[in-house]
C-alpha cells in the first residue's frame, strides 16, 4: 500500500536518510527500529510530508505522493501520532479529539469519539480536563485516540512507549494490536525493540539513515546479532 524507494533526505545540513526503502502492506504492523538518530522519525516525517526528500520515490497505492501537502496525507488516511505525544496542552481532551477529526466532514465523528472512549475509558472520565494536566500515559492514549479520529488507513506511531510505566506500555501495545485487528495498517517506530518485534509482522532496522536489516519479526528476534545489538541480551 505505502512504499518508500531509496529515499534520501536532509535535516538541515545533516544527511539523515541515505537511501531508505520500505513497504507497509495493507493491514499489517510494520516496525521500524534503530538507535537515536538512525533516521526513524525522519522517515515518518517524510511520509507525513513534513520533510521533502532530496531523492527517491514515495508512493501510496501506486501514486507518487511527492507533491502532496501534510494535510493531503491526512485526507489519504495516512496519519502520524508524533513522538513525545504532542497533545495540545491547553485544549480539553474532547477538543483534542475534535482536532483529530479536523479534515472530516461526515456525521460519524461523534460515533468515532465514543469508540475512542471505549478503547481508552480513562479519557472519557477526563473529557473536559485540559490535556496538559493529564499524566504521560494518559497523554499518549489521547495522542493515539486523536490520530484515530482521522480514520487512518495507515497509522504512523512514533515511540508510543517513551517514558511510560511498564504497565501502561503493555496496555497501549494491546490496544495497538486491537486497532490493527480492525484493519488499520500500522508503521511503528520504537526504541523498545523487543516489544515492537513482539507485535509486528515485519521489521526494518535503520542505521545511519540506511536500512541495515529487515525481515520477519519472528526471524529477526531470534537472530543472534540482533539479539546482541538491539535487545541487550
Amino acid at each position, binding site marked *: 500500500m505505502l512504499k518508500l524507494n531509496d529515499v534520501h533526505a536532509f535535516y538541515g545540513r545533516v544527511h539523515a536518510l541515505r537511501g531508505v526503502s520500505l513497504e507497509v502492506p495493507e493491514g499489517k504492523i510494520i516496525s521500524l527500529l534503530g538507535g537515536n538518530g538512525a533516521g526513524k522519525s525522519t522517515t515518518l516525517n517524510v511520509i*507525513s510530508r*513534513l520533510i521533502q526528500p532530496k531523492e527517491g520515490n514515495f508512493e501510496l497505492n501506486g501514486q507518487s505522493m511527492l507533491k502532496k*501537502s*501534510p*494535510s493531503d*496525507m*491526512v*485526507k489519504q488516511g495516512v*496519519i*502520524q*501520532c*508524533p513522538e513525545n505525544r*504532542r*497533545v*495540545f*496542552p*491547553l*485544549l480539553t481532551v474532547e*477538543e483534542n479529539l*475534535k*482536532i*483529530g477529526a*479536523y*479534515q472530516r466532514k461526515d456525521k460519524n465523528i461523534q460515533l468515532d469519539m465514543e469508540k475512542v472512549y471505549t478503547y481508552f475509558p480513562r479519557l472519557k472520565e477526563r473529557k473536559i480536563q485540559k490535556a*496538559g494536566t493529564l499524566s504521560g500515559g494518559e497523554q499518549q492514549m489521547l495522542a493515539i485516540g*486523536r*490520530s484515530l479520529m*482521522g480514520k487512518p488507513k495507515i497509522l504512523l506511531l512514533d515511540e508510543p512507549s517513551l517514558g511510560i510505566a511498564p504497565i501502561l506500555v503493555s496496555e497501549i501495545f494491546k490496544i495497538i494490536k486491537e486497532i490493527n485487528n480492525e484493519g488499520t495498517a500500522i508503521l511503528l517506530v520504537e526504541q523498545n525493540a523487543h516489544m515492537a518485534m513482539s507485535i509486528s509482522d515485519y521489521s526494518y532496522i535503520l542505521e545511519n539513515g540506511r536500512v541495515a536489516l529487515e525481515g520477519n519479526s519472528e526471524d529477526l528476534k531470534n537472530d543472534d546479532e540482533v539479539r546482541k545489538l538491539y535487545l541487550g541480551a
Partner: protein
Amino acid sequence: MQILMSGLIFGCIYGLTALGLVLIYKTTDIVNFAQGEMAMVTTFVSFVFLSNFGFGYIPSLLLALIFAAIFGIAIHQIVMKRVQSAPPLNQIVVTLGLFMILNGMAGLIWGHKPTSYPQAVKGDSIKLGSVFITPNELFILCITFFLMLIFFLLFRFTRVGLAMRASAQDIKASQLMGIKVTSVFTATWAVGAILGGVAGIMTAPITFLDTQMMFEVLIMAFAAAVIGGFVSLPGAVIGGLFIGVFENLIAFYISPEMKLVYTFLLIILVLYIRPQGIFGGKQTLKKV
C-alpha cells in the same frame, strides 16, 4: 464622571487595537509591533476611497477592510511566514522593521499633515445625567464589545477557532492532524489586519488622520494587552478600558504630563503582583 466616560472611550480605542495584537499573538505567537502602522495604512486607504474616489462612508470602509485583508495576507506571505519559527526577538525586530517601512512610506505618499476624518455616526453630544457623550462615542463602545464578543465566540466554539488554538500550541502536531497551518496563520494576519483597520478608522476622527496617529495608541494597546495577559480577548478590551480610565484619572487629579509615567508604573506594579497579567492563565512551572 465625564473623565471616566472619556477614559472609557479611549480605553475602547486601546482595546480595539489590543484585540488585533492579541489575536495575532494568540494564534501565531508573534508580537506585532507593526499593528498600529498597518491600521494607519488601512485608514489612509479608506480615506483615499472617501475623498479621492468620492465613495460613501460604508463602501469606503468595506473596501478598506478588503484592502486590509489583502495587506495582512501579503505581509504574512512575504515576510512573516519566513520568520514563523525564528526566535521571538527576530520576530519582534522584523515587525519593528515593518513599522519603520510602513511609517516612512505613508509619510512619503500621504504627507505628514493631520487631516480630518469623518465619524462613523454624526450628531451632537447627548447629555446622560451629568455626562456628555456623542453618538459616535457610543458607536465605538458598541463596536468594541461586539468585536470582542464575536472573536471570543469564534475562538471558543467554531472549527476554525479550534484550528487556530491548536496551531498556536503546536505547529507540527497541527499539521499532522491535517490542519493547513500556514493558511490558518495567513487568515489570522488577514483578520488581524482587518481588526486593526477597524481600530484605525475608529481612532482617526479622534486623533485625526496622520502617519503618527497610531503610535501612542499602539503603545497603550500593548500595555492593555499585557495587563489582560496577552492571550485573552476580553482581557485585552478590559485592559484597554482600565488603562484609558486610569490615564484620565491621573491626568485630571495628578498631572496630565505624567499620565504615561504613572500608567507604566501601575503596569509594572500589576505585573509585579501578577506576572502573567490579570487575565493570563496560571503561570505554568516548566516541567523538569
